């Protein structure tokens, strides 16, 4: 502590160490927030269901979700996406992303949107006729400090028609 440079160095080192602790505490505080997101998705109608070598479905979704409880003071943004999940003889789990959104803040975390699928719903083959599938809302929470984490809501009980149209 005898010189200007030594004191500046000691202060900077201590300040950055304390900052690391502060960030760790901020990250830890997220663990104590109770999260109860909810989501509901309806398939309004199936616009197109054809086979171009592979089965392709075009549909309109009504997505109603409340992800506000995911936002804490340490949340930068949340990435959410809706995936169709189903089983085929070839793959035990097919996941096809249909729609996604980046939620920048809490005010935009409760939404209802009617949209056609943003990304194409194409199967690997011809397995979609009469197929039962789940729609799953996945989300990834990106905190300002700390580890990114993800969770999902699985909504079962959707099915596709038996014939192409």
């Amino acid at each position, binding site marked *: 502590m*005898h010189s*200007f440079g030594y004191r500046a160095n000691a202060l900077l080192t201590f300040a950055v160490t304390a900052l690391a602790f502060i960030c760790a505490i901020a990250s830890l505080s997220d663990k104590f927030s109770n999260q109860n997101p909810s989501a509901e998705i309806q398939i309004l109608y199936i616009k197109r269901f054809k086979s171009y070598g592979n089965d392709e479905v075009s549909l309109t979704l009504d997505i109603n979700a409340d992800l506000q409880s995911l936002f804490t003071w340490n949340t930068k943004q949340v990435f959410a996406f809706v995936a169709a999940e189903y089983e085929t003889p070839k793959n035990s789990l097919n996941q096809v992303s249909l729609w996604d959104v980046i939620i920048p803040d809490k005010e935009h975390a409760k939404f209802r949107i009617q949209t056609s699928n943003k990304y194409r719903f194409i199967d690997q083959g011809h397995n979609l006729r009469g197929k039962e599938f789940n729609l799953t809302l996945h989300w990834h929470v990106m905190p300002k400090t700390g580890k990114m984490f993800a969770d999902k809501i699985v909504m079962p009980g959707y099915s596709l028609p038996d014939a192409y149209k």
Partner: protein
Amino acid sequence: MDWQGQKVVEQVMQILLVICGVVAVVVGYATESFRMMMMIYAGGVVLATLVTVPDWPFYNHHPLKWLDPSEADKHPKPQVAAVASKKKSLKK
């Protein structure tokens, strides 16, 4: 900066930063604002820098009291052994 000042400055620096950190976390959590926490902590670091880094006069209230040179002359060093003095003269 004297010895006492150096001891005080280190304690002041650590206490200031820890207090600022605790206040920043508490206020940030209470207002749910990460930005607020960072601003308070940044303010604390600037304050700690201003208080502890420059050599303020109040860190120099305990100067070391050296003996006056004339006092040293009155008590001449005892002569050391001949070998040691020879070595010294060789180095020169």
